[in-house]
């Protein structure tokens, strides 16, 4: 965006947000590499405007409730490790909005997104400007070295594209996040997102179409593709986000652990179990899927 567009974006965000929330959003820090962008393409004004608009989705569509935001460090590197689901990966967006709203000192959460986002026109630019980064190992390392708060979904696209019948059963975590958490001495914040798994019940995945379009999956839900683009709008389920106490594996396991693949695998499974437990507890506490009367 040029200077006028940036000012316009901030002016619009100021109109949308209550004054105190606008001030909070603007206070978020960006490692400006010059010209108003960080090295990964994040632009503060776009992020503030996106947060302002998405706040409505957060507040009125998904009516997000969250618990344990105090576990997320207000500075320094950290990994948010949640479950991933819902066909349309809105869970990451809701975590980002939630952290901007609930943390004492708000931070921009940097979500690692799948490779296919890189070649989608407009989507790639938007993702970059709001802080998302392609999930390459090097990017992950660089973000942690810059002391950023990184959201990583170790289930990958398999998690988002899992069938409705497998909801809240985690797909086995990839191990990459453990490797990087140990290498960069970053705490892991286990996170459970309850609600997203019901927002778009996936009945089938039409693999040939997905392959043809270069997407990781092509979903068939009760509403999509039957109702066209409208069918892609997620159901107004109620979201509950739980952040657990940080897991600081680097105290127990030194860099030599990285040579032991079995141990790394075991640690990934350990974090997965913590997230799975949090999901089970979260489901027990939940009164209903849509939570309209609550």
């Amino acid at each position, binding site marked *: 965006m*040029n200077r006028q567009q940036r000012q316009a974006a901030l002016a619009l965000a100021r109109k949308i947000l209550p004054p105190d929330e606008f001030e909070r959003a603007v206070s978020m820090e960006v490692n400006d590499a010059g*010209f108003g*962008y960080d090295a990964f393409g994040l632009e503060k004004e776009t992020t503030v405007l996106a947060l302002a608009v998405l706040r409505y989705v957060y507040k009125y569509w998904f009516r997000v409730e969250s618990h344990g935001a105090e576990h997320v460090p207000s500075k320094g590197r950290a990994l948010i490790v949640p479950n991933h689901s819902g066909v349309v990966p809105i869970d990451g967006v809701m975590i980002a909005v939630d952290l901007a709203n609930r943390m004492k000192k708000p931070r921009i959460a940097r979500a690692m997104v799948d*490779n296919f986002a890189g070649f989608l*026109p407009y989507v790639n*630019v938007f993702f970059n400007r709001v802080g998302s980064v392609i999930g390459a190992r090097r*990017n992950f390392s660089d973000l942690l070295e810059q002391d950023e708060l990184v959201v990583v979904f170790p289930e990958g696209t398999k998690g988002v594209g899992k069938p409705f019948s497998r909801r809240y059963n985690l797909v086995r975590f990839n191990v990459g996040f453990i490797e990087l958490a140990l290498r960069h001495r970053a705490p892991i914040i286990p996170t459970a997102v309850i609600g997203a798994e019901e927002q778009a019940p996936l009945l089938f995945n039409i693999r040939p179409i997905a392959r043809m379009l270069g997407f990781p999956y092509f979903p068939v839900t009760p509403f999509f593709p039957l109702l066209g683009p409208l069918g892609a709008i997620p159901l107004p389920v109620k979201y509950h986000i739980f952040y657990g106490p940080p897991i600081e594996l680097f105290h127990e396991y030194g860099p030599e652990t990285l040579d032991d693949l079995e141990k790394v695998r075991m640690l990934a499974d350990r974090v997965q179990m913590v997230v799975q437990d949090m999901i089970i507890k979260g489901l027990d506490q939940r009164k209903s899927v849509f939570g309209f009367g609550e």
Partner: protein
Amino acid sequence: MPNRDQKFNVLITGVSTSIGRHLASHLCDDKRVGVVLGVARDEKPYYFNDLPSDRFIYRACDILKYRELNNLFLSRTFKEAQINAVVHLAFKTRISHAEDVHELNVNGTKALLERCIATQTIQKFIFKSSNTVYKLRPHNPVFMDENSDLNFDTDVDQWIKDRVDADMICRSFMDNKHMNIVILRMSNIIGRSVGGQFNAYFDSPVIFKPMGFNPLINLLHMKDVIQAIRLAVFKRGAHGIFNIAGQDTAPITTIAELARSRVVSLPEPVLPLVNWVQRKMGMTTYYYSVDRERQKYTALMDIGKAERELGYKPTGRVEF
């Protein structure tokens, strides 16, 4: 390497280019340098008359012609100059691409390199390469280090193939015991009379880019180009490949705005034709085919190695 009291005597090929001219002038001002021998195809350009004649020697030589290259290395001028470092800048831009340009860019580099090794007195060979050698994909990491994949695709522009070939030729001689080879992979150099791709791109009053993409690019100031080459020449024992980039990093549209160019986004398949028409109408000297991927995907240069091993620190700011 020259011992501490010995001066650096430097041969620059392609000295009549913008970079060559600046470099020659800077080296002539440096007390560590004894003689600068500038080589280019044409007769001595007028602007070299300003340089001190006892420190700067110009010689016309086509490095593609075996006899001319041989004569240069056997000449009294060369012998008296006691050259111990060579900076190879004679690499034609995409604008002047033709059959002989491929020869110069690839075979010329090889012939020069072999001749330098044969002298056994030249201890350093510096080759100015470019970031176009890297392969860009949608899932690239944002920062590319020196070990990133090179672009060996068969369908890329011939000029990129030449860049990659020349880079590989220099790499293949890197285990030579007598001569340290330094490859400087530079990002997009922006400056007056520099013949770079992005320089030509942002010079145009209207620039076309693919719809839905706006990658970040690194710009490099001439000051930093000279700094990097000088460090490569003077740093004792320096050898290997180094990425060189400047301080300025921004999306294409932001740079276009600074350059006061109007940006028009078009569907990607239309761009080669539009670029061809623009060139035919004399509106630009930019070749879209070279930067097809660079206009879509961000790939910034990781200069960590150059900072650590050469002491390189970008200081220049690009002005439009």
